[in-house]
C-alpha cells in the first residue's frame, strides 16, 4: 500500500491516551531539588539592593542566587535572531536581572531547595529594594519624544523599522475613484499550552555532561543557546525533549529560567527541576499579537485596489533574546498578502514597552497582515457596492502569475486563491445565504456570513540565525532484520509530524509502517536540526527524510536486482518486497535485502555497495533569498499555504453576544501527506484563532501590571464556545519541495479574525456596525452597535 495521502492516526496516540506519556514534570530523579524564581513586581525599576539572608537561613534551602552572580559568571542570553543582521537593536538580557527590571514577571532572583514549598517561600522571603521608575505601556506613547525609555542606551523605544515601497502610491491615490483609511487593532494574547514550561537539569562532573530535559520545540538550537550563554562547549550539554504538552511557538528558547537552571545544576551538581506555575507562564512565558495597523487604500469603482499605504505599529514588549519580535517584521513582510496591488508603501515600527516580551505564537504576525487585508476588502466592497467575495476575486494574484514577488521582497511560490474561495463559498452555499438570512430575520434572528482569507508563509529562514533556517536533517537506518529507524532533526509538540515522516519513508522504501520507529528530540542521538516552528517539520524534515530514504532505496534496489538477476531499473519496492516491475510474483523481501547488505557484504549481490544501510541527509529549501536586493530586501519564507474560510454567525444585538453557526474552510498547503492529521491541526488553529478573536486577552493596566494572570481571567475557549468544522483540502503543490508539501501547522488561526468581523457586520448590516478592534467580546460588539446608532443606547 501507499501511505502518502492516507489519513492515519498519530503513532503516539495509544501511549498518550493511556496517560503513559512522559512529560518533563513526570521525571523525579533521586535527590532532585526544586527551583523557584522571584519575579519583578514592577514594570520598570532599578534594583538598589537585594537581601537574601532570610531566604538562605530557611531550613531546606540549598542555594540562593541573584543577578550579581549571574552577570559575573554567565554571558547575556544568546539571541535567537542575529539582531545586527536583521538591522535591529540588540539587548543584554541576563538569566537574572542584575540592575534594572523592565516588565512585571522578569526574573530577579532564584532559590534552590529540597522541596517546592520551601523554594517558593524562600524566594518570597528575599527582600529587594527597588527604585520604581516610570514605565511606558502604550506603543504610540512610547514613540513620542520624551517618553520613558525601556532601554536608555537606545535613545528611543524603536527596536526595528522597515519601509517597503513599490510602484507609485501617490499617483495611485491621485487617480483613484475612491479612497478609504482606517485602522485595525489586534490585542495581546498568547498560545497558553496546557503544559506549562518545564525543565530538569542534571550535571555529571565525571563526564562533564549537563543533561537538560526540556519542554522545548528546539533541542539543538537550545543546546547552542545554553552553551553560548554558559560559556561551555556544546558537547558538554545533551538536550532531551520528552513529550511536550503543546508548544504553539511559545516553547522556543531562550527564556531566563533555562540557562539559569542549567547554571545552577552545574554549580550544585544535583538534579534540579523547574516547573512554571500558570501565573508565571502568563506573566513571563511570552506574549504575542499586539499590533495596530493603520491603512489607506486607493480603489477603482470596479473594486480593484490600486494603492496601499500601511503603517504597522507593534508593541513587542520588553526587548529580550526571544525570537518573538520577529513577528512584527513578518506582519509588514506579508502585506498585501494574496492581493495584486501595484503601488504600495508598507512601514513597520516595532516598539518596545514595559510589558512581557513577545515570543513566537502560531501565526507569527502573518495573521495580522491577513486580518487587515480582510477588513480592507470588506470596506472596498461596502464603498463600491460590490459583493465581498467578488472584490477579493478581482484583486487576487492569479494562479499563472507565480512565483510572485510582493512589495517586501517576499517570493510567493504558488497558489490558486480564486479556486479555494469559490470552493468554500459553494460549501457554505453563499449564493443562497441572503434568503436564509431574510427568513431568520423574520423570526427575529440576526444571521450573518463572513469571509476570511489567510496567507500563512512557512519554513522561516532568517539570515545568520541559529534558530530559523530553511533546512533540516534526517537519518534513516534500515536494521539487519529489516526494521527501520528514523531519527529526525525536527521535533513534534504533539502535532503528529513523526507519523507523517514515517509515512514518507514507508513509501520511499516500500516498507510497512509497522516496521518503522521514529526517534526525535535528543541532541545526542538525532541528526542536527532546528526543531519545530513555522510549519517546517514536513517541509524541511519530511523532505530530508524523503531524500535520505531515497539514498537507501537506490542502494537496496541495486542489491535486490542482483538477487533477482535483473536490471535495477526493472525493480520496484512496495509492501515489504522488492519485485520485478510487471511481474510482482518475482520478488525478494525487504528483510532479505537488508540482511544481504549487512551479513553478506562480500557476497555477490552486495559486493559493489558500501556496507551498512544508513543515510543522513539534509534538505535546503531553494526558495529562500538572503542576498539583499537594491532595496535591502530579502526573501525569508519559501512556502505559502493559504486558506479561505466562510463563517455564519448568529448575533444577539441586545447583548452583543454571537454564536458560530457554521464554519467552513478550504485549505491549500500543497500536497498533504496525512489529511487526517492536517485537518486535526487546522481544527486546533481555528479554535486558537476564535480564542484570539473573541475570548483571550492579556490585559495590562497603565502601570504595567498584568491583570489576567490565571486561566480564570485569561479565558481560553471551551468545547461549548466553538462549533464543529467543515474542512476541505485543495492541493496546489509547492514547486520547490520533493513532495510538493508546503506546511500546515500554523494555518487556521487567521481566518477567524477577519471572518468573524465580516460575519458580525453582515448580521448587523442594517445597523451599519463597524468592527476594527479585537477581541470581539460581547461588550465590544455591543459598543460597536451603540456607536453605529450614535451612542444613544
Amino acid at each position, binding site marked *: 500500500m501507499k501511505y502518502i495521502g492516507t489519513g492515519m492516526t498519530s503513532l503516539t496516540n*495509544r501511549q498518550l*491516551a493511556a496517560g503513559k506519556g512522559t512529560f518533563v*514534570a*513526570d521525571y523525579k530523579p533521586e535527590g532532585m531539588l526544586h527551583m523557584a524564581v522571584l519575579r519583578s513586581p514592577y514594570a520598570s525599576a532599578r534594583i538598589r539592593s537585594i537581601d537574601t539572608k532570610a531566604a538562605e537561613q530557611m531550613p531546606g534551602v540549598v542555594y540562593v542566587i541573584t543577578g550579581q552572580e549571574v552577570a559575573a559568571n554567565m554571558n547575556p542570553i544568546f539571541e535567537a535572531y542575529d539582531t545586527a543582521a536583521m538591522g535591529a537593536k540588540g539587548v543584554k538580557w541576563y538569566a537574572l536581572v542584575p540592575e534594572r527590571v523592565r516588565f512585571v514577571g522578569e526574573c530577579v532572583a532564584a532559590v534552590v531547595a529540597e522541596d517546592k*514549598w520551601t523554594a517558593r517561600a524562600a524566594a518570597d522571603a528575599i527582600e529587594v529594594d527597588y527604585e520604581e521608575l516610570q514605565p511606558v505601556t502604550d506603543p504610540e506613547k512610547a514613540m513620542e519624544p520624551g517618553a520613558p525609555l525601556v532601554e536608555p542606551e537606545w535613545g528611543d523605544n524603536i527596536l526595528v523599522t522597515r519601509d517597503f515601497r513599490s510602484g507609485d502610491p501617490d499617483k495611485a491615490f491621485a487617480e483613484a475613484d475612491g479612497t478609504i483609511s482606517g485602522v485595525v487593532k489586534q490585542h495581546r494574547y498568547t498560545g497558553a499550552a496546557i503544559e506549562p514550561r518545564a525543565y530538569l537539569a542534571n550535571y555529571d562532573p565525571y563526564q562533564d555532561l549537563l543533561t537538560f530535559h526540556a519542554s522545548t520545540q528546539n533541542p539543538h538550537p537550545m543546546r547552542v543557546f545554553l552553551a553560548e550563554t554558559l560559556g561551555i562547549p556544546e558537547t558538554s550539554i545533551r538536550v532531551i525533549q520528552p513529550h511536550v504538552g503543546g508548544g504553539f511557538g511559545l516553547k522556543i528558547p531562550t527564556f531566563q529560567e533555562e540557562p539559569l537552571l542549567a547554571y545552577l545544576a552545574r554549580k550544585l551538581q544535583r538534579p534540579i527541576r523547574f516547573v512554571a506555575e500558570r501565573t508565571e507562564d502568563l506573566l513571563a512565558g511570552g506574549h504575542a499579537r499586539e499590533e495596530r495597523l493603520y491603512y489607506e487604500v486607493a480603489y477603482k469603482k470596479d473594486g480593484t485596489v490600486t494603492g496601499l499605504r500601511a503603517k504597522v505599529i507593534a508593541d513587542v514588549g520588553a526587548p529580550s533574546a526571544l525570537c518573538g519580535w520577529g513577528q512584527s517584521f513578518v506582519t509588514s513582510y506579508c502585506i498585501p498578502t494574496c492581493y495584486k496591488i501595484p503601488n504600495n508603501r508598507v512601514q513597520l515600527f516595532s516598539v518596545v514597552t514595559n510589558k512581557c516580551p513577545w515570543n513566537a505564537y502560531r501565526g507569527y504576525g502573518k495573521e495580522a497582515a491577513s486580518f487587515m487585508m480582510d477588513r480592507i476588502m470588506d470596506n472596498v466592497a461596502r464603498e463600491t457596492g460590490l459583493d465581498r467575495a467578488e472584490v477579493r476575486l478581482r484583486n487576487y494574484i492569479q494562479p499563472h502569475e507565480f512565483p510572485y514577488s510582493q512589495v517586501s521582497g517576499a517570493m510567493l511560490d504558488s497558489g490558486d486563491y480564486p479556486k479555494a474561495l469559490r470552493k468554500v463559498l459553494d460549501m457554505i452555499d453563499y449564493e443562497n445565504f441572503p434568503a436564509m438570512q431574510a427568513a431568520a430575520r423574520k423570526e427575529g434572528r440576526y444571521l450573518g456570513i463572513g469571509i476570511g482569507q489567510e496567507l500563512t508563509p512557512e519554513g522561516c529562514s532568517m539570515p545568520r540565525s541559529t534558530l530559523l533556517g530553511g533546512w533540516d536533517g534526517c537519518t534513516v537506518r534500515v536494521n539487519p532484520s529489516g526494521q527501520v529507524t528514523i531519527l529526525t532533526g525536527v521535533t513534534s509538540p504533539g502535532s503528529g509530524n513523526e507519523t507523517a515522516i514515517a509515512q514518507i519513508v514507508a513509501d520511499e522504501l516500500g516498507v510497512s509502517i509497522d516496521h518503522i520507529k521514529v526517534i526525535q528530540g535528543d541532541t545526542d542521538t538525532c541528526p542536527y536540526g532546528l526543531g519545530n516552528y513555522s510549519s517546517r517539520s514536513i517541509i524541511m524534515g519530511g523532505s530530508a527524510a524523503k531524500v535520505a530514504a531515497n539514498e537507501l532505496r537506490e542502494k537496496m534496489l541495486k542489491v535486490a536486482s542482483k538477487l533477482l538477476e535483473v536490471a535495477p531499473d526493472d525493480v520496484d519496492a512496495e509492501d515489504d518486497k522488492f519485485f520485478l516491475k510487471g511481474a510482482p510474483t518475482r520478488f525478494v523481501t525487504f528483510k532479505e535485502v537488508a540482511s544481504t547488505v549487512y551479513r553478506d557484504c562480500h557476497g555477490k549481490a552486495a559486493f559493489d555497495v558500501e556496507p551498512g544501510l544508513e543515510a543522513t541527509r539534509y534538505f535546503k529549501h531553494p526558495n529562500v533569498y538572503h542576498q539583499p536586493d537594491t532595496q535591502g530586501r530579502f526573501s525569508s519564507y519559501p512556502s505559502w499555504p493559504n486558506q479561505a474560510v466562510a463563517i455564519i454567525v448568529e448575533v444577539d444585538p441586545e447583548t452583543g453576544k454571537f454564536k458560530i453557526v457554521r464554519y467552513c474552510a478550504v485549505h491549500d498547503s500543497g500536497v498533504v501527506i496525512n489529511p487526517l492529521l492536517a485537518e486535526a491541526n487546522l481544527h486546533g488553529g481555528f479554535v486558537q484563532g476564535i480564542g484570539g478573536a473573541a475570548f483571550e486577552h492579556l490585559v495590562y493596566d497603565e502601570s504595567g501590571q498584568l491583570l489576567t494572570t490565571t486561566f480564570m481571567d485569561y479565558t481560553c475557549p471551551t*468545547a461549548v464556545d466553538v462549533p*464543529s468544522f467543515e474542512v476541505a483540502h485543495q492541493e496546489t503543490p509547492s514547486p520547490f519541495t520533493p513532495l510538493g508539501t508546503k506546511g500546515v501547522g500554523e494555518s487556521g488561526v487567521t481566518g477567524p479574525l477577519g471572518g468573524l468581523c465580516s460575519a458580525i457586520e453582515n448580521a448587523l448590516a442594517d445597523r451599519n456596525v463597524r468592527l476594527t478592534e479585537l477581541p470581539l467580546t460581547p461588550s465590544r460588539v455591543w459598543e460597536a452597535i451603540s456607536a453605529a446608532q450614535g451612542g444613544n443606547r
Partner: protein
Amino acid sequence: MKKTIQITVNGKSYSRDADTRQVLADFLRDELRLTGTHIGCGTGSCGACTVVLDGRTVKSCCILAADVDGQEITTIEGISTGAQQLHPIQEAFVEFQGLQCGYCTPGMVLSAMQLLKENPNPSEDEIRHGISGNLCRCTGYHFIVKSIQEAAKRLQASK
C-alpha cells in the same frame, strides 16, 4: 506538617503520610508516581488534573491530599489494564484522533467517562457541556467530540 491518610487509588489501598500543603494532584504524581494526572493551571480551570473521587469528577489540583482520607480515587491509570486493553473511551480517542499532545487527555477521558456514565447517549451539545471543564489547545475539540460520540455508540452496543 504531615498527616497520615488511607486512600484507595485504582482499587489499591495506600496508607501514606501526606504533607498538609500537598494537593491531591501532587500526591498522586509525586508520592504514588501516578503521573498520568497532569497539572495545567493550579486553579481548577483547565481540567488536566481531573480524577474521579468517590464517584464524581474533581480537579485534583484544588483539593488537599490530607482532605481525601478514607476516600476512593480513580485516575487515568486505573481505567485500562495494559497497552492493548485500553478503556473503550481511550480506544475511541486513539482511533478518532481525539488527542494531539496528550497533556489534557487523561482529564478529558475521565470527564467523558463520567458524562457517559450519567448520560449514555448524549447529544453533541451535551458532550460539549460535559467536557467544558477541560481545556484543550491542540484539537479544537472537534475530534474529541467525535471520539466521545463513537465511544458512546460502542458502549451502548456492548450492553
